[in-house]
């Protein structure tokens, strides 16, 4: 495996309870440009037997580092390199902060 499959074990039930049913203000934020497309693969909710790593609730600085290294090719990937090349530093920072603020 070229990437870490970091799967935070406790989070899914909590997340589901809060993000649906009118939940907290934070979950009802559409996010900065680009973020809503990430969730097509990196869902807010835990998906049983998905092998795509979860990023909701991860440290913003980790997400930023991954994205920059995918973009430069320093960190290998199947698809993230092609995606990260569409975003500049500022956009990545905003998206990372938004995901970091989501329930893990």
């Amino acid at each position, binding site marked *: 495996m070229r990437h870490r499959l970091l799967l935070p074990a406790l989070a899914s039930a909590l997340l589901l309870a809060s993000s649906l*049913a009118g939940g907290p203000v934070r979950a*009802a934020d559409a996010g900065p440009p680009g973020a809503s*497309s990430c969730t097509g693969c990196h869902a807010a909710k835990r998906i*049983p037997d*998905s092998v*795509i790593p979860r990023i909701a609730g991860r440290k913003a600085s980790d997400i930023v580092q991954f994205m920059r290294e995918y973009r430069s090719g320093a960190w290998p990937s199947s*698809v993230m390199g092609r995606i990260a090349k569409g975003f500049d530093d500022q956009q990545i920072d905003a998206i990372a902060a938004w995901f970091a603020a989501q329930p893990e």
Partner: protein
Amino acid sequence: MATRRTFLKLTAAASLAAPSIASAQASGRVVVVGGGFGGATAARTLKVLEPKLTVTLVEPNPVFTACPFSNNVLAALREISQQQFGYDGVQKTGVVLAQTAATAVDASGKTVTLTDGSKLPYDRLVLSPGIDINWGALPGYDEAAAEKMPHAWKAGAQTVLLRQQLQAMDDGGLVVISSPANPFRCPPGPYERASLIAYWLKIWKPKSKLLILDSKDAFSKQRLFQNAWAQLYPGLIEWVSLSQGGKVTAVDPATLTVVTDFARHKAAVANIIPPQKAGTIAQKAGVADRTGWCPVEPVAFESTLQPGIHVVGDSAIMGGMPKSAFAANAQAKVCAGAIVELLAGRKPVDPILINTCYSLVAPDYGISVAGVYRPDKGVLADIPGAGGTSPLEVVGGFRGQEALFASSWFKTITTEVFG
């Protein structure tokens, strides 16, 4: 023309200005037509972003049958039931489900007419009716012909029919796939289908052949597909391009004959993927142009022909974005966010959208094409330097891993859309 434009500008300005008097929070009625990848996403996202909205989803089918991964059903790798999703999760979000079809739209009176003649008023309307077959565009291909020569380009009974025909075919039979000119739903779809049928034929009917008759000279992920075919299914798949005479000009369902300008191919199984257009309700609403598809602006995907009506998914002309479930879902989320802003009297910011289409060449062999898009000169344009296909040369388990990512994507997106 000038008067019409002025009128549109005025109504657009009015609809933007009015709610801001009330408050900065959105309230209002949004109707969404079509409970597929675009529509169900739009309805759910609207309600999650702004619980005060009244959101009604109009969809006649109690169960949605998804097209992505339906090519696996043809190759007996999945059952059609695994493609099916109900609307409980959508309703749980607070969306009102109207289980019926929309039959008309009055864009100036802002109402949607339902099958029983009742009218639903709206402040903003979202249309995501997907495609309809452009019956009549291919001589000989009508609804009756589709029962003999299935398109299987809307998943469900057509998919099951094509699978049954393949299973009933004698070993050594000729399978013909006809692929249309651009634009059409799921550009890599015909070639993924050819791949997975070839995978199945190689195991169960190894003397058979598969012929793709194409109305194009190039197709999505072409080199990746062709390299894989040469490696996995040598001699089994033949692709005939437009300039080699591949364009299908007519079909004869009585004899299962597929006709080009140069030849008549008698098929054992004929899968005709015909020319398509935006779902019929788009024409009725006046949001489709002469191409049969719907022009929209690139920020909120509001129709450039009728203010107050947004179009997402396959029906819309989305610049560089292909017609995919991934794209429909991404567009619907952006559209929902923009509608919340518009109803609150704010101006939506320029979005960025991603598309990724995975295809399986074999169950454990995945390839992908991705793109990143932003508004540029009035259309959604590719961000230069981003996107592209999986590499042509890879080592180790790369293709196997992309196949796993493909099925992970399907689980993720269907959970996001349907709950």
